[in-house]
């Protein structure tokens, strides 16, 4: 299930906000079809890494490659390169950011029709399949405000998938949800992992990460403190990883 060359490759990523250096040289790769979980204390830079992969944040230095799109941030990237890199991934936000003025179906077909210029009929048919897949068949004509938080986030996932990206980026997809709604969203993500989607997910759900991740990156102070398989979560080598996990599992 893994290819010879990794699908995602990140080298020497640096990013500062003002005086604060958030990323101080991050390197990692991820294979096609793998699930990469980014964990770490808040402020460790994990969300910034995710947002660098689709240039919602512009890194100060470093190279990001997804599939055949590469940007070296040594020089300010041109618009076409950014667009190319962005087209490789879809993103799921912590608080879904669905378009409130569009129906569920409208949210799903917006990107395929307006950006990818695909035929409306085709995009609509695919959107219906996706909604079925995330358990929302029949809610096509609802507005986001008429859905529960878990349903909204599942629409958010379906919207990202509608663009047929090579990679799906998920930024704490369950953090904003009421506890009883977390399960339905995690179930959908589990299904995606089982279908061999390439996922990069920032999460606090340690157990979930242990279940679905192929690769775990533990971030601390802007660097990858520990990297490996799920053993990072079951048998951490680094002190700070141990401390973090103890805290998270206590809380959970």
């Amino acid at each position, binding site marked *: 299930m893994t290819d010879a060359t990794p699908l995602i490759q990140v080298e020497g990523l640096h990013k500062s906000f003002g005086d604060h250096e958030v990323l101080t040289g991050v390197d990692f790769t991820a294979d096609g079809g793998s699930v990469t979980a980014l964990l770490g204390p808040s402020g460790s830079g994990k969300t910034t890494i995710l947002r660098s992969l*689709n240039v*919602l944040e512009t890194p100060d230095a470093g190279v990001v490659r997804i599939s055949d799109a590469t940007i070296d941030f040594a020089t300010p990237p041109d618009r076409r390169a950014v*667009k190319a890199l*962005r*087209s490789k*991934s*879809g*993103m799921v*936000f912590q*608080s879904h*950011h*669905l*378009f*409130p*003025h*569009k*129906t569920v*179906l*409208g949210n799903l*077909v*917006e*990107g395929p*029709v*307006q*950006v*990818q210029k695909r035929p*409306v*009929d085709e*995009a*609509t048919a695919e*959107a219906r399949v996706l909604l079925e897949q995330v358990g929302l068949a029949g809610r*096509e*004509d609802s*507005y*986001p*405000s*008429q859905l529960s938080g878990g349903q909204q986030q599942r629409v958010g996932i379906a*919207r*990202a998938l509608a*663009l047929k990206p090579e990679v799906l980026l998920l930024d704490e997809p369950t953090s904003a949800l009421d506890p009883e709604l977390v399960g339905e969203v995690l179930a959908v993500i589990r299904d995606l992992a089982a279908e061999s989607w390439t996922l990069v997910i920032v999460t606090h759900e340690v157990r979930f990460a242990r279940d679905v991740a192929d690769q775990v990156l533990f971030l601390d102070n802007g660097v990858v403190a520990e990297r490996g398989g799920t053993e990072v979560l079951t048998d951490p080598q680094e002190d700070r990883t141990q401390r973090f996990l103890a805290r998270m599992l206590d809380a959970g």
Partner: protein
Amino acid sequence: MGDGAGYAGRVPLTRRLLVLPALLVLVYAAVLGAPAAAQADDARVVRVGTEGVYPPFSYRDPDTNELTGFDIEVIKAIGEEAGWDLRFVEAPFDSLFPALDSKRIDVIANQVTITGERKARYLFSTPYTYSHGVIVTAKDTDDITSLADLKGRTTAQTASSNWAQVAKDAGAKVQYVQDFGPGVQLVEQGRVDAIVNDNIAVLDYLATSGNDQVKIAGDAGDEVLEQALAFRKSDPELQQEADAAIKALTDDGTLAKISDQYFGADVTVQGGSKDVDVKATDSRTTWQVVKDTAWPMFKGLVKGNIPLTIFSFVIGMVLAVAAALARLSSIRVLDWIARIYISIIRGTPMLVQLFIVFYGLPSIGLDLDPYPAAIAALSLNVGGYAAEVVRASILSVPRGQYEAATVIGMDYGQSMRRIILPQAARIAVPPLGNTLLSLIKDSALASLVLVPELFREAQVTAAATTEYLPLYTMAALYFWVVCYLVSLAQGPLERRLSRYAT
């Protein structure tokens, strides 16, 4: 609704924004442009500026609503003699000279008195009226009988009339009014002490209004004043043609006949004005006047205020969105241009903006007709005020919406058009509703740049009939009804734009 095909098949917002003004222009051209294009012959077109609210010289016949009066009949006779094709343009007296300067009219026929100052700037025909001034006071004022008594007192005058100068020369303070009628009201109410005006105009007023609260207190000096047609200095041919015509009309008795018809005396010769006897220009009841004026006022609303409002609002909204986006732009120059534009519009009176566009810009070669000038000024005004509303609305759309649009691959234009502006619109509708209501009311100012509209019709009839209160109240009522209907439409629009927010 909500079906994918129907959803994406809708016309994008910007295209709709562009189509609407284009359509409006076509409708407008069809409705308003047709009469002007209809008649075309070889005669020289001469545009005549006149007040239309100065009976018995220039006013609308209360029965037919046709422009008439002594000056009107005289210029018509002159036009016929000289072979001119006359087009009448009605405007307040203070707008007539600016209109002549900016080539919006070619001649003023409105009892323009020849003065030294005016002679330096304009060409005058042979006089066709000889008049003298009188002083009007309230009935029980007994300490004003001559110009000398005006020293230190207050008089009500139109700004650019020679009578204002006569009053000033006598040492009076001058309060400016738009025309004679409102001045009389001020005298009656005791807000000013007197008016200096032409004896014929005053006699006409007294006859028509039956007003016994004011009186002619005395002559304003013994100077005889001469009234003539005024032309631009650059139009000596028109002046010569007019003089030839006036001579012919004097010789064949036409002018004397017209004068006799209006005044029972020949004011076209020296000394004639002493024997003037004026009949009332109007004798209808108040109710009859109101009924007769309702239709012309409605036409003014439909042909003036409403199209002005619609065009100006649509164009103004385009300007507002552009200015708001410029304000939010990361390009500093755009931000500053928008800031300056908004600051100028919000920091200067609408009236001044209107006058700059219409009377000011022609002197730097930008010469707009009345309708386009009014639309330009109103649009710029609306755009400046609405820009900040639009900007605030755009800023109120959560940042996550930009990011969501960005990650599905939209560029700036697409995310604005399809994601941000539709959400901002919902927030902007209530305050923009206020802007629209202000605009409807501001459209009444357009009469000052020669656009016929509702309030102008009220003023015209009020001048001829002195029924100020009922007519102005009716004008207010018309505006209120329109504004009320607009505010009724606001509710459904807000609901439609908010249908997704439950």
